[in-house]
């Protein structure tokens, strides 16, 4: 978003020539001992179950039209990039969004920052529906929702100085008078661990990790309440990734920022996010707190994803870990499979999966899953757990006389849920 602002920015800082020599990219620092370094290292963030949601996404959809070739360019189909997802991000918390490439996680991030206008659904933020706002109404709201981009090499304008890039949001939103922009920029650069005197340098003079810090500084200038971080560390070297993750955690604690953390690296998401949503082909298939997702995942796709992650601990045992092999590729989102979208690659799939789409059912105090055969790995039930709720028989055909029950499909977790073992509603 700030990128867009940058290009519109009418007044640019006059570029102050540096004159001096290029400093060594390795800053001269006092020697740290390991104990000091370890104390700066961060523990994974804890979940605050009572935090108010800062944003509530309800049944959000984004369909991109597919045009025919030729003169008329008729719409011949839609890419269902995001198809009816609901979740909420708690205040000062972090929700991780994981999935394979093409599952719609980046589109979700761009919808929340309104880089795209959603096809349907609502995004409630401070009592306003971001999905319905006009560009004029949206402008004051953009202060509160900012974005960090994946690639620090393409998300910074190479012809603008760091001062212009980081200061652009300030001048666009007229937060501070023009003559105070530079001191404010320097203040923010210091917060993200850059030398404040480098404000008149160009992005090419910085390393990858430092550039990502500039991107973070730009997102921070307006004191946002929600930051959408789209793969913020995947373009960085391993040793630099941890520095940036620790910085994001510091900022979150200091400024009480909520994060929507989009990544495909499950280990980093586990460290950063107390809550995780797993997406597959435009839908959320499972959403739960960290312990449940990583310890007791109930969806076969989540289980397959987790088993595919290579593990350093494996060195002690030798050889490869036993893993669930997913065959083939993700189906096309233009023409997704009927019923459950994962059924074409799922080892549990039965007739009901092709006929009825499983709802994202709450099965624990902080656990929702969309699967007819939800269960822990190796303990999946033989009969669909959802058949009774949906008013269908085990093959997925409608049962005469039975009506589907009504249950919570909203963005938040309810006090009562459907226990798949007991097959009825229970409450906390």
């Amino acid at each position: 978003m700030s990128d867009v602002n940058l290009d519109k920015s009418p007044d640019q800082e006059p570029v102050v020539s540096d004159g001096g020599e290029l400093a060594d990219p390795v800053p001269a620092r006092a020697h740290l001992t390991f104990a000091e370094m370890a104390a700066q290292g961060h523990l994974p963030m804890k979940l605050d179950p009572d935090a108010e949601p800062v944003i509530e996404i309800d049944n959000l959809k984004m369909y991109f039209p597919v045009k025919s070739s030729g003169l008329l360019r008729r719409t011949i189909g839609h890419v269902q990039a995001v198809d009816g997802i609901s979740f909420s991000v708690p205040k000062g918390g972090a929700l991780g969004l994981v999935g394979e490439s093409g599952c719609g996680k980046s589109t979700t991030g761009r919808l929340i920052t309104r880089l795209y206008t959603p096809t349907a659904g609502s995004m409630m933020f401070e009592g306003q529906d971001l999905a319905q706002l006009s560009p004029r109404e949206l402008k004051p709201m953009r202060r509160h929702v900012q974005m960090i981009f994946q690639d620090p090499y393409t998300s910074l304008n190479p012809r603008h100085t760091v001062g212009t890039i980081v200061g652009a949001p300030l001048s666009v939103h007229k937060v501070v008078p023009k003559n105070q922009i530079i001191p404010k920029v320097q203040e923010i650069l210091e917060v993200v661990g850059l030398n404040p005197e480098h404000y008149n340098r160009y992005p090419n003079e910085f390393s990858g990790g430092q550039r990502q810090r500039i991107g973070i500084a730009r997102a921070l200038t307006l004191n946002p309440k929600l930051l959408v971080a789209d793969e913020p560390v995947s373009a960085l070297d391993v040793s630099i990734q941890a520095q940036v993750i620790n910085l994001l955690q510091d900022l979150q604690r200091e400024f009480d920022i909520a994060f929507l953390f989009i990544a495909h690296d499950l280990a980093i998401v586990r460290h950063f996010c107390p809550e995780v949503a797993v997406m597959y082909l435009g839908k959320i298939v499972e959403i739960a707190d960290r312990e449940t997702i990583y310890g007791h995942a109930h969806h076969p796709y989540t289980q397959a994803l987790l088993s595919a992650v290579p593990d350093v601990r494996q060195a002690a045992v030798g050889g490869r870990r036993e893993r669930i092999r997913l065959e083939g590729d993700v189906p096309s989102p233009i023409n997704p499979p009927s019923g459950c979208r994962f059924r074409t690659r799922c080892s549990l799939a039965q007739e009901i999966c092709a006929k009825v789409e499983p709802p994202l059912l709450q099965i624990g105090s902080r656990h929702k899953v969309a699967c007819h055969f939800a269960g822990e790995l190796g303990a999946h039930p033989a009969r669909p757990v959802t058949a009774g709720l949906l008013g269908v028989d085990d093959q997925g055909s409608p049962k005469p006389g039975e009506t589907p029950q009504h249950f919570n499909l909203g963005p938040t977790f309810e006090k009562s849920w459907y226990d798949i073992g007991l097959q009825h509603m229970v409450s906390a």
Partner: protein
Amino acid sequence: MTSQSASAATERGADPFLVVEDLTVRFPTEDGLVTAVSGLSYSVGMGQTLGIVGESGSGKSVSSMAILGLHDAKTARITGSIRVEGTEIIGLAEPRLRKLRGNSVAMIFQDALAALHPFYKVGAQLAEAYRVHHPSASKRDARRKAIEMLDRVGIPQPDARVDDFPHQFSGGMRQRAMIAMGLINDPSLIIADEPTTALDVTVQAQILDLLQDLQREFNSAVIIITHDLGVIAEMADDVLVMYAGRAVEYGQCKELLTHPEMPYTWGLLSSVPDVTADTDARLIPIPGNPPSLLSPPTGCAFHPRCVHSDKVPGDLCATTLPELTPGVRGVGHLKRCHLANADDIYQAEVLPEIAPELVEES
């Protein structure tokens, strides 16, 4: 595979398939001489996998490209020795090198979209790789071989997909096609340069399975270059950790990853979170940035970023480059560090912070 019996013989013989000795690669640039790799030695036997770990600019790719003779002979200054099956590569004439490339030594590149030619059909590119080394083969034979290889790497409907262009393949399929191209001449040595870095975890698992199956089948030697220690842990027999163009730690995979003795390796382990780790484990980054190879730091190249150099007496780290010597745990485990009791420090200080649940066991 014709060379299988021959390779079994070399395995029984004294010399491993690939021997790299004291390899140094320098590039003259406008700003001065860059020493990309210096004094690197390792060996890989048939059926073995060597994992090379390091950050960008640590010389991992440069050293493996030297094995294929891919550096410009006019500018790159290469010294030392690289022997593939007893043949010295350095200084070898281009026609002989060309015979070697893609035939007994093959490379799998990181970015399959950039490594495949966008204007040629996938099948045609595979067939070309085959015909170059089999001049007597007809076009039809080459095409049949291409289809067979695509089938071997698990591409569905290979007889139809052989006429597709690279952009019609998905990311995982392109990587498979590249592996098929690398393996079409049954190479004895496969160099995989970050083969799965751009891929999703599920596809990564498929590709790693494939590499391992193929290695088992053809008994090839494999060098896998990556920065993902998880991939190393599951794939490699031996591990080489590189920093600023030098080997800083070298040993058996299990030994090296459970008892690392070099603070840089500790830093790599502590800066990557783990999916199975205790949630009390801390993420401890390595401070600073990788050094410039134009003017590497004096002494140990890692000392400006090292948080353990206070445990070494005096200014040793800043003044003297440590030798790559056996550590406290035996001759098979080499390390380049002045720390005398590295393993004790790792077990007592580092491990409790990064993996508290492992401390009781060890």
